[in-house]
């Protein structure tokens, strides 16, 4: 068995092999792999014995289930109204400058991806972003630089 097959089997052992198990399994794969490849979707379909098109249909509905390979750290900057009003653009610019990539792209070393996302629920501490599951609020360009540098160092960069 290849690593993906093993992972999916393990996830199915935990979450079950029913239609209702799909979402937790998909989430588990994305957590490990950082995206859903065609192979992994086909493998999930096989493992729980439903058409691959059903897995694909479900997977493509959810914005956190990416079908494109993401970096190790996925940065999601909130673009909804309050964050927009309170300086989301400067936050985004700072990140783009530091990582030297555009919105939606992944750094060549596959470490960071920048995305925008809808309301994260931190409007009272806007602007806000997620890096993987971690929340950062009341962002300023300075604060963003600090946060990102610490992530870059974590990776032995700089």
């Amino acid at each position, binding site marked *: 068995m290849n690593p993906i097959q093993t992972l999916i089997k393990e996830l199915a052992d935990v979450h079950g092999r029913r239609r209702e198990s799909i979402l937790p399994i998909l989430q588990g794969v994305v957590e490990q792999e950082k995206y859903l490849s065609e192979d992994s979707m086909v493998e999930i379909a096989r493992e729980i014995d439903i058409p691959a098109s059903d897995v694909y249909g479900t997977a493509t*509905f959810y914005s956190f289930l990416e079908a494109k390979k993401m970096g190790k750290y996925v940065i999601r900057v909130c673009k909804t109204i309050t964050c927009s*009003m309170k300086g989301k653009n400067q936050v985004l610019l700072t990140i783009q400058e530091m990582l030297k990539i555009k919105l939606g792209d992944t750094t060549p070393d596959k470490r960071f991806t920048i995305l925008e996302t809808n309301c994260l629920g931190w409007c009272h501490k*806007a602007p806000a972003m997620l890096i993987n599951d971690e929340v950062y609020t009341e962002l300023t360009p300075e604060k963003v630089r600090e946060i990102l540098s610490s992530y870059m160092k974590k990776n032995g960069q700089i």
Partner: protein
Amino acid sequence: MESIHQLKRADFIFRNENDWEKILGNALKRKNQDIIKELISSELKGRGGAGFPTGLKWKFASEAEADEKFIICNADEGEPGTFKDREILTKVPYKVLTAMAVCANIIGAKKGFIYLRGEYKFLKEELNKAIDEFHYYCNEINFDFTIKIFMGSGAYVCGEETALFESMEGKRGEPRNKPPFPTIKGYMGKPTVINNVETLAHVFTILKYGAKKFYDLGVQYSRGTKLFSVSGDTPKPGIYELELGMSLQDFVYEFGDGDTKAVQVGGASGFLVPRKNFKDAAIGFKGKLTGISLPTGGSMMLFNSSRSMFNVLDNYLKFFREESCGQCTPCRVGCQQLQMGIKAVKRGEKPSSYLTKLLRLAETMQLAAKCGLGQSVANSFSSIVDNFHEEMIY
């Protein structure tokens, strides 16, 4: 009209109570009918936005015949400007769990779920600890009930109750037709009670302090307190528990920055109220007092005169466009056309009279869209375009 209602702060939800075991034990001993009656007499209405009477919901589910039933706590909290449910689950999760268990006992459910939005994944570990502790106690008193967290994956529409069921069943989060309502056919086609996090926390207050205490707060048709998520141009953004029925004027007096030009009540799917209408708007459920009454999931976003209402509307429409599940044409195409339309007017590619056409399109969506998402786009669209017509054009 002079406003008669002062802002009345309250402190029930976040008050730390260390007697949930006792509250649960007592409630499990009471007759089901008794608790349902008490909830109905409290006039507690759902805090997730739609405002359905909670006691009735539990009653319907308890009367439904089925081999299996479910209680689900809706923690998908995706409405722009809302962030209170996370705070409840962080600070007083046991209130929500207790209310879920009491509901389960009344309707005859053995399983409960908390549908937690993917954006709140960092909460999961702590919440699971609270659930473990809760299970331990249920075990001790021989009460057969378990709660599981189900994670969302970044889709606003999954907060709509039937889309949430679809999502939990492993499908695309596409809302179903109603009826049948969840209390008859919900998750897995079984009778299901689905309640907002805050609704369940209020149930705890009612179990502990009695229906009368709750009923005595607020105003006619809008009883009790409500958490408000306050953001935007305000010196004190945050979460506040207030009695229902306040006038928007008093709200702005307390939370405005002195230059408030409009307040968005109820998030992107709510209404924008311009300054001239503050004194006539009261915050509560429909059918109360004079003037406009605004139901709300508790999102209050303030805008001062430096803000362009065109940008605000454009931001909302982009939100709806992306979050529409795409299942029905009025919403899928409507959201797109509304956004393209206001841009075209702004750029002068369409005459200003085109706005009237767009208003009619929004009205059509209200009538023809399948779920609350598409139906409520007209709320913000019409209230912004009507009140800030010039800003849309110039």
